[in-house]
Each structure stands twice: as structure tokens, then as C-alpha cells.
């Protein structure tokens, strides 16, 4: 663990990203305490400039909703959708990739054709269609993002399993008569974890961008304030109040940047050999 931390902290960008990410997490957790009133409430005069009224430090939108409250509450949706959809995608990906890699043959063929199929379809277009047809809600958004993002995990896990299943410890387990599912779940899959963790971290960032894009297009869950929605709503005010669309975008940018930096740090820390070769 100390070795891990040492390698992680050697990458100064990763440490910066981690600090930023912790800050975002704290804001997400404390959102109801910081702004107990719903961010949808119209509580001020419309279109206040930032710093104009200190009760609303970041100003208000065209309906008098507090921008700062929107930003703080938007953190929750972004992180929630990002992590839950990635978790689902990883489960599907590990399942498909593990089975395909371990059993090989026609099972592998069929599963990989399906994976390729999902990889060729334009992801965002498919997510849009899925959410639109199953009506926008947190559940449909998470499902749609998970459905379009599992293929890379499946391919990664399959490749790892293909190389692992020939190794001695797997042969030993087979000779010892351990059941197939235990060999797969207990011996092989845990060893594929490091690269999967790195990929999953980067997938959270992509999922956050996708969620923002969906709610920008009007496909967000209207029960929750989200950054994409705020940008979409501010579009008609581009001339009068450009700051309305600037701030939520900066929030997305910083969050996604932080996660990507942490992902790179994890990659350095978990695959030390890879780093030495590349640098």
C-alpha cells in the first residue's frame, strides 16, 4: 500500500486531481446542508450578475434560481450517474469478457461479435435514442450510459483472461479439481482488476460528459438539477448573460479533469512496468 501511494504521488498531476476530486465529493455529500432549499426554487430577482447580491454569490438565472445552489446540487447527479453507470458497465464487461476469454471457441466468437456490434454504433446517438424512448429518468440514463460503455471493458478483460488462463497457477487449480466458476471468479478475474480499475476510472469521466450531453439535449431527469441542464437552459441567454453557461461548464471540466488525472495516477501506480517502458 505504501508502495502504491509512493508511485501515485510521484505524479504531481494525479495528486492535484485527487485533491480536486475530494473537494467535489465533499461538496456532493454536503449539498443538502450547504443549500437546503431546492435549486429549482425561484428565490431571487432574475438575472443577477455574480457578486451583485451577496446572498447569491454566483448570480441567478432568468427565473431567479440560485446558480450556486444549482452547481452544488448538480455535483450529486454527475457523480451518481458517473459511478453507478460505470459500475454496471464494468459488471457487464467483466462478465462478457471473462466468459469469452475463459471458454473461447464459439462462445468467444458470439460474445465478441456482440461486443463489436455495440462498439460500432455511435454511442451518444444510441444513448439519446434509449433515454428518449424509455422516457428520461435517472434509471434510464444510467442504463443507457452503461449499455453503450461496456464493450471496452469486455475486450480488456477478455485479453487479460486469455493470457492468464495459460499460467501455472490456473493449471494448478485445474489439477486440484476446483470448479470452473471458482477458477474464473476466484483465480483469474481478481488478477485482471488493476487494468480494469484504471479503465473504469476513465469511464466515470466519460459517463459524466455523456450525462451532461444528455441533459443538455433536454433528456435529463427533471427531479434533479444537473450541470448539462443548466447549460442547456442558459443557451437562450447567451448574449444577455453569458456567465450562466460558463460556470456549469467549468464545473464539468474541472470534475472530469480531476478524474482523468486520478486515472492516470492509478495507471502509474498499478502498472509500474508499463510506465518504465513508456517513459
Amino acid at each position, binding site marked *: 500500500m505504501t508502495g502504491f501511494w509512493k508511485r501515485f504521488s510521484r505524479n504531481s*498531476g494525479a495528486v492535484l486531481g485527487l485533491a480536486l476530486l475530494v473537494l467535489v465529493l465533499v461538496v456532493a455529500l454536503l449539498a443538502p446542508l450547504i443549500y437546503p432549499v431546492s435549486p429549482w426554487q425561484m428565490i431571487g430577482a432574475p438575472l443577477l450578475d455574480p457578486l451583485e447580491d451577496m446572498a447569491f454569490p454566483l448570480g441567478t438565472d432568468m427565473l431567479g434560481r440560485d446558480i450556486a445552489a444549482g452547481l452544488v446540487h448538480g455535483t450529486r447527479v454527475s457523480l451518481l450517474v458517473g459511478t453507478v453507470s460505470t459500475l454496471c458497465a464494468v459488471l457487464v464487461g467483466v462478465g462478457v469478457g471473462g466468459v469469452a476469454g475463459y471458454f473461447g471457441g464459439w462462445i468467444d466468437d458470439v460474445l465478441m461479435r456482440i461486443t463489436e*456490434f455495440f*462498439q*460500432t*454504433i*455511435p*454511442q*451518444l*446517438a*444510441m444513448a*439519446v*435514442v*434509449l433515454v*428518449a*424512448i*424509455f*422516457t428520461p429518468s435517472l434509471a434510464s440514463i444510467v442504463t443507457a450510459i452503461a449499455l453503450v460503455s461496456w464493450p471496452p471493458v469486455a475486450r480488456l478483460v477478455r485479453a487479460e483472461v486469455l493470457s492468464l488462463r495459460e499460467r501455472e497457477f490456473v493449471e494448478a487449480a485445474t489439477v486440484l479439481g476446483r470448479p470452473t466458476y471458482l477458477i474464473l471468479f476466484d483465480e483469474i478475474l481478481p488478477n485482471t482488476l488493476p487494468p480494469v480499475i484504471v479503465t473504469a476510472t476513465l469511464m466515470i*469521466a466519460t459517463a459524466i*460528459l455523456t450525462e*451532461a*450531453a444528455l441533459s*443538455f*439535449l*433536454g*433528456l435529463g431527469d427533471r427531479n434533479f438539477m444537473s450541470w*448539462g441542464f443548466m*447549460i442547456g437552459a442558459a*443557451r437562450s441567454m*447567451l*448574449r444577455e448573460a*453569458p456567465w450562466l*453557461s*460558463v460556470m*456549469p*461548464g467549468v464545473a*464539468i*471540466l474541472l470534475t*472530469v*479533469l480531476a478524474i*482523468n*488525472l486520478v486515472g492516470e495516477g492509478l495507471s502509474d501506480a498499478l502498472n509500474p512496468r508499463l510506465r518504465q*517502458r*513508456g517513459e
Partner: protein
Amino acid sequence: MAFTSFLAGRIFKALLVILAIAALNFLLIRLAPGDPASVMAGESGATDPKFVETLRTRFGLDQPLWKQLLLYLGQIVQGDLGFSYRNQVPVIQLILERLPATLLLMASSFVVSLGLGVGLGMLSASVRFFNRKRWLDSLIMTLALICYATPLFWLALMMVIVFSVQLDWLPAFGMESVGANLKGWARISDIAQHLVLPTLALSLFFMSVYVRLTRAAMMEVMMQDHVRTGFAKGLTGGEVLRRHVFRNALLPIVTFAGLQLGQVAGGAVLIETVFAWPGIGRLMFDALLQRDYQLLLGVFLITSATVIAFNLLTDIAYRFVDPRIRMEGGAR
């Protein structure tokens, strides 16, 4: 001979994938909550019982499921993607009218992002190779990192604020000046001006992907023995880079460029929405607003088909870049 059979095989495979996407559309229609015919009729069409009834016959809703699927696929094969009630035009006609604008945007973004990305990636890798001006490498990588984290649609809006609203340099909306009725070169330059911001907004994200890929691919090749041999032969650093490093690094870039196209198409939906670019991405957004699901699914199918067609082209390009592949007869 080997090439024609390779081509036939790839085209057959591409058609199969398109058919599978059509089947996926069918599945979505069936899974959508509510009666398929009234769902598909859309917001405005559902109030017209006659239109819902024609949809009922179109989908063959009184027949067994497998017959419905065959019926649906049959219509798709004949180019019949349904009828947009709101626009009172067949869906395929709407899409074909808008397709050229999207192809133009996708092609220009593809060229710009690939050009900028490969160029900057090469620059980044070479300053490391010669161990001079390493700050340039850091600068390029930071730029790539930021571009990779920026939401496309937000970047587009920021560009509108800066270059259209504040500086008034470039048009922010549409593909041509309204009512200008330009001809010939004047029209081309008008379209080119409208193309600048959407292309840049769509390109920067993919540029960052290509920068990192090019840099990584080149650094990997730099470690290999034949590069050392190049130096031993007495070639200068520049010659080694050009002849031995870049050529070998090109291959993963071509493969990856093809794979990215699906994402470019998805990004086009966002960019066209922001810039009111009259392509099929904008059409998809309009279909969303009007809940015109036949149009939505039609755009989805054609977008996917476009991506598959582009992928086919990169596959063919690939065979020309790497002569080794010809020996294997297309099998990887």
C-alpha cells in the same frame, strides 16, 4: 482477386450490422412503454386516429412477433423508414436532404482533428526524442488533457460567445447566410466561414485523443532496435524520425481513427444542435423535441450506417498503408 473477395466479405458484414441495428430499432419500438403505434405516431400524430391506424397496419401489430420483425426489416431494406407526421414527409427524404451537411461537418472535423492531433503528437514526441525544448511537450500534453475533459457542446457555446457575440468574427448559426442567395465561389466561401466554428468545436476533443495516441505510438517505436540501427547507419535524427519512427507509428493511428468515427458522429448531434447546422444531428434534436420517434430511429439508423460505411473505407485504406496485411487475406 483476393482484394475483391475481401471487399465482398466486408460489404456483406457491414450490411449485416446495419440489419442488426434495424432489428435493434424494432426491439426498442416493442419495448417502449405504451402501444407501439401511438408511441411511434409521436406527439402530434397520436391525435390523428387515421395515422395511428396506418401505423398499426405498417407494423402489422395484429400478426405474430416474428412476422412483425420481418415486415419491419423488409420495409427498411426497401428504404422505407416511415413517415414524419409533423413534417408531412417520408423520413428517408428528410434525412437524405440533411445528410450532405453532416457529411461535410464530419469530414472536415475528421481531417482537422487528425491533422492537428498527429502534427502536435509528432512535435511532442520529437522534442522528447531530441531532448530539447521539453516544455513544448508539457505544453502540448496539458492542452490535450484539457481538451479531453471539455464538454463538446459547452466548448461550442464558449466559441459562440467569444468569436461571434464578442468579436463578431464568424457566424454562429446555420450553414449559409439567410437570404443572401450567393452563387459559385461566394457561396463556397460563405459556407466555409459558417463551417469554421462547428469544425473547431467538434475537432478539439478528438485532436486531444490523436495527440496522445501519436505520441505514445512514436515513443514506443523509438525504443525499438531498428531505430538504433538507423543511427548506426549514420542517418541524422530527422531522417530516423521520418523514415523509421513515424512510418511505423502510423498504423495504430489509422486503426484508431476509424474506431473514433462513431464518436465523431455522436458529437455531431451536439455540435449541430448548438450551431443550428442543418444536418441529421440537428434533425435528431428536432425529432426529440417533437417526440417524433420514427424520425429519431431513422436518424439513428442512418447515422450508424454512415459510421459503418466510413469504417469500411478505413479498413480499405488500412490495406494500402500496411502491405503486410495483404498476405493474410483480410483475416486478422
